[in-house]
């Protein structure tokens, strides 16, 4: 039963990844080919999900857009979690002045209005995908860091950690062997929230014109582009929305399944 609950979301994620990466290899419709005279077309044999305002194939754009959005979502979250666990772990474990310095650095990072950083950096170097990943990751590690730090600070006093210390184990060893597993429930919640946060941040940046740049598709900029057609062709906004929803749903259920497996 337990394995089954983890299998379903993992399966869904695999399907999404296949859709995005293998899809365009099988269905070779050019996602950027314009057909201005047949914009906002309904579903047909040639275009199973219809066409967008510029007559581009919606299905093909959902696939290649998925590559971008999934890459942004997972990689940015990975960046944030690694940074956050490192900073929060060290701060919580070492306490004292190290904790003070790291937490003030975390405060500083949190006090920077993310929007301006994104704006400045993205317009300085262009809205390229690796940069978007970096920006979203680097501006969202503080949450995990504070959570990890609070948990580690509390766990540091726990009996099994005291015992390990009494046995003469080194800090990093104890951290990896005893504390990290304890953090998994927390981190899996943070990861699940993080992926959807990253995908949504990209779409919000798209709304401000700073996300992945058209003509390159992302689910976020497809959603932004569909705003004007909401009265006449709401499906253009629904499809990328559904993809985002499925992705976050899959990530979150997977996170929960993992958390349950690690529960004591």
């Amino acid at each position, binding site marked *: 039963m337990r394995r089954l609950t983890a299998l379903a979301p993992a399966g869904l994620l695999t399907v999404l990844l296949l859709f995005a990466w293998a899809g365009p290899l099988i269905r070779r419709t050019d996602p*950027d080919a*314009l057909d*201005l*005279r047949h*914009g*906002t077309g309904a579903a047909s044999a040639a275009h199973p999900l219809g066409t967008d*305002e*510029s*007559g581009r194939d919606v299905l093909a754009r959902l696939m290649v857009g998925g590559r971008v959005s999934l890459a942004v979502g997972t990689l940015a979250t990975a960046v944030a979690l690694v940074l956050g666990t490192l900073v929060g772990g060290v701060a919580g474990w070492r306490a004292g002045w190290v904790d003070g310095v790291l937490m003030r650095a975390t405060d500083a990072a949190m006090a920077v209005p993310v929007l301006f950083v994104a704006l400045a950096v993205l*317009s300085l170097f262009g809205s390229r995908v690796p940069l978007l990943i970096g920006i979203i990751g680097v501006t969202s590690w503080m949450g995990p860091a504070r959570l990890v730090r609070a948990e580690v600070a509390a766990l540091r006093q726990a009996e099994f950690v005291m015992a390990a210390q009494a046995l003469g184990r080194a800090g990093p060893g104890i951290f990896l062997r005893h504390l990290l597993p304890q953090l998994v429930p927390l981190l899996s919640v943070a990861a699940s929230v993080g992926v959807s946060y990253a995908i949504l941040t990209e779409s919000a940046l798209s709304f401000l*014109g700073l996300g992945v*740049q*058209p*003509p390159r598709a992302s689910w976020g900029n497809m959603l932004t*582009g569909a*705003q*004007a*057609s*909401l*009265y*006449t*062709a709401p499906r253009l906004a629904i499809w990328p929305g559904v993809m985002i929803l499925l992705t976050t749903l899959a990530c979150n259920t997977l996170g929960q399944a993992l958390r349950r497996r690690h529960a004591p």
Partner: protein
Amino acid sequence: MRPAYGAAAVALLTLAGCAGTDAAPADTLRLALINDPILNPVLAPDVGSVLVNKVIFPGLVRPDEQLRPEPDLATSWTISPDGKTYTFSLRRGVKWHDGVPFSSRDVQFTFERILDPKSGSLLWSDFATIERVEAPDSFTVRFVLSAPFASFLALLGYNAGIIPEHAFAGKPILDNTEFNRGKPIGTGPFRVVAAVPGSSLTLEADPDYYGPKPRLARIVFKLVPDANVQVAALRAGELDLVTLEPASLPGVEGTPGLTIRRATVPQHYYLALNQRLPLFKSPQVRRALDLAVNREAIIEGVLKGAADLPVGTIPVALGDWFADSLPRAATDTAEAGRLLAQAGWRRSADGTMRNSKGDPFRFTIRVDKGNPSREQTALALQQDFKAIGLEVSIETVEFAALVRDDLQPGRYDAILIWWTTPPDPDQYSYYASGQINNNVAYANATADSLLLAGRRETDPAHRRAIYHAFQALEREDPPVLVLYYPREIQAMTRRLTGLPRLGIRDALRHSETFSLGPR
């Protein structure tokens, strides 16, 4: 459900229930702005501020429905035979919104500020030809120009609203925040009664207005930054008139109670081809590229029909000045191929256009980011050029960076951009060689002499012949690839009447004729 939630839900429903009745009286016109305006025409010719300032601050003349200058604060004028001295008789009995009488001193003061770039004036370049401004008596103003300047009248009616000398009393106009942000004093049909930063600006009809009594009681400018929300607010009956992006048109068409107008405006959208580069030096190459573009597809597909096919750089909105007798731009890829061949480009086996050295015809189109219509137009151009064997890539750049770092220093291949011009055909500064706005480095001796003659000629018939000749020349040696003349899509409530058939900016110079029918 807990009782507290139930109560909250009931409260929400009640709030929603007492809706529907928008409290604005039937004679209040509600328009949208995207951010807070600066209420001073000398400081702020930006799109948002201009809309408001045209209502508050009349100029000496204003454009009529054919964009010809008609009397406003000046009742008549004479032009000296050499075209260098303009003498205006001012309207008598005009009062500023605070009751102080208007006089020639105010006009003189306004232009002294305009001609001093340190004052913060952004109208300097429009009026740089003014040598001096004289006020021989309270109701006469004389402008002496350094050279004949035929578009002078049009420019006076464009952005040059008159500001009151007494409100500034020797203080720099930039520092009068109270005036510039909340309590401006003009002579227009409506005066500002309330300014809420970030929210709205309320104007009320001025009982002392010198023209016909305004038919609206109030004009409210609401700040609505998002274009899609503007459309929603129009449909919700919270705004009475909105200008639309073409993409929003299908969402408004057929809505009961609304009507849509497509007004021609003095703008031309074009692809700037940098003629500092050898690639675009030859007129044949520019002609070929011009013939490769399928403008009908762009106008129908991207602009939803809200644009006109072009002839040259003088748009159809300029009425007589536009050379309607000349053929409009058309697509002819075969002819494009022939012209490229004349310029030394041949199609190679792989379908790409190459010169004798085997280099491909390759360039980058830059476009400002964030505007779907222009991004799609750039994509369409890319596809059209690809069809004749050119390799085109597209880069989106933020508008400010595009202008400052690429367009003005001349560091680009091609840029998709536009000019919004005053209601006059004078394009000397844009397309005469070496002039400040000639960002494409176009150089054609015949064009130079035509544009200079047109700027100096005060006889309308002669001037028309000059500009028609210029447009004919542009077909042979295009300074830029003119893509289309956009139409401003105005979606408004059916109750609104009395709006002249002009773009909203110019129409607002006639706000006293606007009227709203009963709800």
